[in-house]
């Protein structure tokens, strides 16, 4: 099992975190903190000596700024595939090269456990037909599972039709859904584990909060 980097989420997933050789999708609205789960996932991997790759459509400097903003030290950083600031560039118009670069980087580190975090699913889904992306991600996930790797992907809620997201969710072993719940004037960030390989369905939503010392999952709403 691979630690999520968030002890309370590890506990929720049976004290161990994400399953080995799995793919996890986090879906949520903008600004809710999906990326933070990815940052902690990578950060923990770096501490444990795993090979970590962060594939993003954003510049490296923006991601590092965000990491610092949520209290994650940047003295250890993953290998990057990004729009700027990394030796390997991410060109959203060339999905094939992105896939090739990810697989090549993972293959180079086949002796180690690998963690891949990416925010590229939504941009690629916006720019390409859903059928093409279904095959694309299916192939990529399948290839990565040949090695000791865990892929953590983010998807933007509201950027795609619901049936598109549902289709993509079926490709992943685990799906975590984040929502902003409005009750009166109060806005509460919630999440739920929609599915996770090896775990029985976990019903109900959980509140969570992000502080400079980490992310805390607090008692369930329902």
């Amino acid at each position, binding site marked *: 099992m691979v630690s999520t980097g968030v002890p309370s989420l590890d506990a929720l997933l049976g004290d161990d975190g994400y399953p080995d050789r799995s793919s996890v999708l986090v879906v949520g609205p903008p600004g809710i903190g999906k990326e933070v789960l990815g940052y902690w996932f990578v950060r923990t991997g770096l501490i444990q000596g795993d090979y970590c790759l962060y594939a993003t459509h954003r510049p490296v400097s923006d991601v590092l700024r965000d990491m610092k903003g949520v209290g994650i030290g940047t003295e250890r950083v993953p290998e990057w595939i990004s729009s700027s600031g990394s030796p390997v560039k991410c060109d959203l118009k060339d999905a094939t090269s992105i896939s090739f670069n990810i697989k090549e980087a993972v293959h180079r580190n086949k002796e180690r456990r690998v963690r891949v975090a990416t925010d590229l699913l939504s941009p690629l889904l916006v720019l390409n037909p859903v059928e093409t992306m279904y095959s694309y991600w299916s192939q990529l996930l399948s290839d990565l599972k040949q090695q000791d790797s865990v892929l953590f992907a983010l998807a933007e809620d*509201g*950027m795609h039709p619901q049936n598109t997201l549902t289709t993509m969710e079926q490709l992943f072993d685990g799906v975590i859904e984040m*929502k*902003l719940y*409005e009750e009166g004037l*109060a*806005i509460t960030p919630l999440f*739920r584990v929609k599915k996770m390989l090896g775990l029985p*369905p976990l019903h109900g939503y959980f509140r969570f909060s992000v502080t400079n010392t980490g992310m805390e999952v607090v008692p369930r709403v329902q």
Partner: protein
Amino acid sequence: MSSDTVVEAVLLAATCGVYIFAGYRAFRIRKALVGALYRSRALWSIVFAALFVPFVIAILPFNFSSGIPVLELDALGAFIIVFNFAAFVFCDRTILVARELDFFHRDTLGYGKVRWLVWTMSAVGMFGSLYGPSSGWVSYLFAILWPGPLAYFAVALAATSLRVPDRAIKSYSKWFGLFTGVIAISFLALTGGILPLVAGMLVASIFYYRATVSLSATSKLDLATLSPIPAAA
């Protein structure tokens, strides 16, 4: 007190109320969000709403028929400069944030190139309007130079909203662009009297509120009906 003045005062009070509520909503949204970009937009919404309320109160009584200045002219001038500066930083940062969120980081309407020209026009227009001649063609030039850049911001924000895929910033840019456009039109309509300005301010405040609440893409969850999807084969 004339009936026009009463109408203006009522509209003014409503405008302030909307800004105060928008500021409060922004505060709640900021608490709920984690993303730095969205939190910074919410913080700006709070700061700007806090500045807008005294601005509306301070600037308009000068123009009421029974007007009682609430600030000395120098103090008012300084306040308008601070407010205007804040407004331009707010618009500027919003366009830059939207560019950051665009997958291809496109420069809407060449904003990166004309940015400093827009700022200079605004500064010249603002200082000229406040401290320059109050009549003649030069005063008209200053009067146009001031809201002119705001109109540019409105168009740039509208164009940005078409490009950004992020639904929160897309909606935010759209409503904020409308807000900026109405403010620009309101200032240009000042020659028609104070009532169009006050009415414009109220319309703008509603757009401002819509922009603020669009930062949080909330869901009305029916917690009981949601169930997990089947596991992958």
